[in-house]
């Protein structure tokens, strides 16, 4: 009967007072029983027999209560509730299996949700509070002069200004940089993520300041803007206790005092969620600090910026691209005219285009290594999910087999098939939901691990606090819960009660066994494919670590200087000397020297002329470092022949140079380079080569031969660059003490930053490092899951054939033979899976290859090792069931009859 509204309300009231109603019914029945008892006493029953008879007449009180209560429950709901209760009871009866299934779910869901959360943030989720994200684009600029193909190019501020003033299809345009910057002064100085933006930037967001205001156009004017700063909410909270008194205070940013004028709202990260800015300053203030005047006048030597646009509602992306490209070309022509006016030449045949690309960098055409790894992680996590699903299906099948008699009895008792199916489904969903909940916790852990290795700069994120991730995890949970639950369902539909009730034995196990074997092979296949990936990445990582760099970065710290107020050259030169001297007095420092550029941190190149060679450029790329005495000892580069730069190579002494071994061979083949002459840049006169140093890598770990030369810092741009410090051992440990000591030498409004030299190299190795970690961890996980699956399959098999095995052994079969046959079955299944897995790995070599480092994706050693490991694991998983088979006792088996 359908509920009328009044009826429904009564039902609702009943449920709201559920426990009270329960008591009502119980008390009522108790009263009734007591009355019956009294009636019987009156009729002459003895007290004892009266009580007994009363209870007998009342029948099953529980059932009566249930029936009475059932009136209030709609039938369907009742059935489901019963199923849930039954499921929980059934699951508690087999705690080990239940735990195994839940853990499998938890691992699958955990890894998947962590991967999703990561990929979501990198590629799908627009930054918080961005208005209409689909109309916002990051503009990318490309140039193509046919020589090196199309390349993305950087944009100086002047180009942005010219383009911004000539486009009409956009409702908002902004420029921004996201360069870390130092804040504070003296020894308390530290680097934070920052956003250097035009005021229009804030117009892209619906983000009212939490306090104060954002800066305005009048504060972002050439030449130097106004020194004002907007704090992030996090910074405001941690440093100023979220107090409004922060407004109006001064904060030293990049050595210049800035006035705090506002606070961004909570969670506001601009457009760089992977590097949440701590402060926002006007682009003009930043430009003036970084490259005074040049920042807005120079096409070639200013500051690099990014451009953000919002399309007007009726403008298509194609139309947007067209207008941006047109504006870019016009700006380029202006630059070329200016260059020709100054007597320069313009590169011919330059083709330029600009496109409105997706906002999130990792969705754009140039994905970062992190983005690529995140994609891989999410792919791998899907595989893990499939394996988990197969494993659960396998375990559920095992469980269904264990309960075949129970099922048969229920069918015999008239439980409908539909009801049986809903029962099983509820069970598998209960497992999935339990596992999924634990999975979110696992996800949180995985997330933390993955982020620390892949995205060390990003603020940590929470999985548990994120509705999107939880929703996806829930969807995945239900999906695999249903899919995994389906396998035993197919079985349950076919239960023949007579089969069990007749003999207590199932003869029809083979069909199920095929299903389970297939599931197991699937698991092994995918695990092997993942483990091969793991092996390849581990090898790549080893190769990357093993690359001879030609210097020893682990003990070296790189010190850079920043000046809030520019210093004259002479002061900088003496300051650098002072820093070197101060560093050398520290007990933890063994050597210190001047340096101009930093390997893996961007090298310098200057025009080079050598007698007898028309164009040195045609021979290759020659990079330079201007260094102080002791440089080679400090960084650990060997001098092959001759001498290094030493204390005598000062301004006014004979100009000298040291060249790398490869450069000596390239420029003066067959001759002795020492004593040869080279002319660098505008400095006139011959510079004599006095030494040959070993080759170093400064651009990439792989790639072509690099040519390198060194000049004495004091003879070439002595005011440029910072210093290198060699510590006793592990450089990062001493970074802070070195920074403090050197900061003491710095004039007001200026500061040093100290970073391990190995940072730049670690960034290059990160993708292999992370790949090795992700694949190894997940591959091992899958192997373990497969081992559990194999174990359960064999154990189940042995249990089912216990009688047969017992009889065989009783008839004199060799126990060892019986055991080895069980183990053989495990090995055969595993081998089939391993072969398929290797086939998949070979087939996908084409896509994996480019991600590896000096490693063939078809390396037989890796494949062999993986197969060996998997077989050993399979053998271990088969061990216990095999032993059990060998010790099958015919008496026990036959007693079952």
């Amino acid at each position, binding site marked *: 009967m359908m509920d009328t509204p009044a009826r429904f309300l009564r039902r609702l009231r009943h449920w709201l007072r559920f426990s009270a109603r329960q008591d*009502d019914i119980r008390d*009522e*029945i108790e009263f*009734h029983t007591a009355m*019956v008892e009294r009636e019987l006493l009156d009729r002459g029953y003895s007290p004892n027999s009266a009580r007994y008879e009363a209870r007998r007449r009342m029948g099953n009180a529980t059932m*009566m209560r249930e029936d*009475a209560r059932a*009136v209030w429950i709609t039938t369907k709901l009742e059935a489901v509730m019963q199923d849930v209760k039954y499921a929980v009871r059934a699951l508690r009866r087999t705690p080990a299996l239940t735990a195994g299934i839940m853990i499998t779910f938890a691992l699958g869901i955990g890894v998947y949700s962590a991967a999703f959360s990561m990929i979501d943030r990198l590629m799908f989720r627009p930054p918080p509070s961005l208005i209409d994200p689909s109309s916002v684009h990051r503009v990318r600029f490309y140039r193509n002069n046919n020589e090196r193909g199309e390349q993305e190019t950087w944009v100086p501020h002047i180009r942005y200004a010219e383009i911004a003033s000539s486009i009409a299809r956009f409702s908002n345009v902004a420029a921004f940089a996201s360069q870390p910057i130092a804040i504070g002064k003296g020894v308390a100085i530290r680097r934070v993520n920052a956003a250097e933006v035009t005021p229009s930037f804030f117009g892209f967001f619906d983000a009212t300041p939490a306090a104060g205001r954002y800066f305005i156009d009048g504060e972002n004017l050439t030449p130097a803007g106004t020194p004002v700063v907007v704090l992030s909410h996090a910074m405001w909270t941690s440093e100023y206790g979220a107090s409004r008194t922060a407004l109006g205070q001064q904060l030293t940013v990049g050595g210049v005092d800035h006035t705090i004028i506002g606070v961004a709202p909570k969670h506001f990260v601009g457009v760089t969620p992977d590097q949440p800015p701590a402060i926002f300053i006007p682009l003009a203030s930043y430009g003036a600090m970084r490259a005074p005047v040049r920042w807005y006048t120079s096409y070639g030597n200013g500051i690099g910026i990014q451009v953000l646009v919002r399309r007007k509602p009726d403008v298509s992306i194609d139309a947007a691209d067209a207008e941006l490209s047109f504006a870019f070309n016009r700006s380029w022509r202006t630059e070329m005219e200016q260059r020709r006016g100054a007597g320069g030449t313009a590169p011919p045949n330059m083709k330029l285009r600009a496109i409105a690309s997706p906002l999130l960098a990792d969705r754009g055409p140039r994905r970062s290594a992190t983005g690529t790894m995140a994609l891989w992680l999410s792919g791998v996590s899907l595989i893990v999910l499939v394996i988990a699903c197969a494993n659960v299906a396998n375990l559920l099948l095992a469980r269904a087999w264990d309960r075949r008699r129970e099922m048969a009895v229920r069918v015999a008792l008239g439980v409908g098939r539909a009801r049986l199916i809903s029962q099983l489904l509820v069970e598998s969903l209960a497992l999935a939901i339990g596992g999924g909940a634990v999975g979110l916790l696992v996800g949180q852990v995985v997330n933390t691990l993955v982020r620390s290795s892949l995205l060390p700069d990003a603020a940590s994120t929470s999985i548990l606090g994120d509705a999107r991730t939880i929703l996806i995890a829930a969807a995945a949970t239900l999906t695999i819960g249903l899919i995994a639950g389906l396998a035993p369902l197919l079985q349950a539909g076919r239960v023949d009660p007579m089969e069990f009730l007749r003999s207590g034995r199932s003869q029809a196990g083979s069909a199920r066994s095929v299903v389970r074997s297939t599931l197991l092979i699937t698991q092994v296949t995918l695990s092997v494919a993942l483990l091969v990936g793991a092996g390849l990445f581990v090898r790549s990582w080893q190769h990357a670590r093993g690359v001879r760099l030609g210097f020893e970065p682990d003990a070296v710290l790189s010190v850079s200087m920043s000046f809030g107020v520019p210093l004259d050259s002479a002061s900088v030169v003496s300051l650098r000397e002072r820093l070197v001297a101060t560093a050398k007095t520290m007990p933890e420092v063994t050597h210190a020297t001047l340096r101009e550029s930093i390997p893996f941190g961007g090298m310098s190149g200057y025009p080079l002329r050598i007698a007898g060679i028309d164009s040195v450029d045609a021979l290759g790329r020659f990079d330079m470092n201007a260094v102080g005495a002791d440089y080679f000892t400090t960084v650990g580069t060997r001098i092959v022949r001759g001498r290094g730069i030493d204390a005598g190579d000062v301004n006014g002494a004979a100009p000298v140079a040291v060249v790398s071994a490869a450069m000596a061979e390239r420029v003066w083949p067959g001759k002795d380079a020492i004593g040869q002459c080279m002319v660098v840049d505008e400095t006139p006169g011959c510079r004599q080569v006095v030494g040959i140093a070993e080759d170093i890598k400064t651009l990439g770990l792989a790639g072509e031969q690099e040519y390198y030369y060194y000049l004495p810092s004091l003879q070439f741009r002595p005011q440029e660059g910072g210093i290198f410090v060699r510590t006793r051992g592990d450089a990062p440990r001493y970074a802070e003490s070195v920074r403090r000591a050197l900061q003491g030498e710095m004039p007001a409004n200026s500061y040093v930053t100290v970073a391990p030299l190995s940072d730049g190299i670690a960034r290059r190795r990160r993708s292999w490092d992370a790949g090795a970690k992700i694949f190894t961890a997940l591959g091992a996980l899958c192997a373990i899951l497969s081992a559990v699956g194999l174990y359960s399959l064999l154990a189940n098999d042995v249990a089912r054939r216990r009688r047969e095995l017992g009889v065989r052994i009783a008839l004199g079969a060799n126990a060892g033979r019986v055991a080895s046959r069980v183990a053989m079955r495990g090995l055969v299944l595993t081998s089939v899976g391993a072969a398929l897995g290797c086939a998949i790995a070979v087939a996908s070599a084409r896509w994996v290859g480019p991600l590896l480092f000096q490693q063939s994706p078809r390396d037989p050693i890796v494949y062999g090792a993986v197969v060996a490991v998997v077989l050993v694991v399979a053998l271990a998983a088969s061990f216990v069931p095999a032993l059990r088979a060998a010790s099958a006792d015919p008496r026990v088996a036959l007693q079952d009859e």
Partner: protein
Amino acid sequence: MTQNSELLPGTLDLLVLRTLMREPMHGYGIAQRVKELSKDVLQVGESSLYPSLQRLLLDGCVKAEWGVSDNNRRARYYTLTAAGRRRLEAEEQEFERVVTAIRAVLRYA
């Protein structure tokens, strides 16, 4: 033991409602009254009485209140509501119709 007649399907609610016409009663009282009035022919089983009462509660035909029984015990008394009276009337008419029909068949078949 006396031979009890099974109730015609659907008549339990009718009997319960009719019993409550005179005064509020508890479950045991209802069962006793039906037994007495039918001279032990009709027995209301406890296992169907209480679900029936719950059903009538749900339909709003009766109200239940805790009170004190004749022998000073706590008992739950059921009272007929206006909706219950209407239901009783309808059920009585329906019962008469069925009984008349059955008699007609018995007489003329």
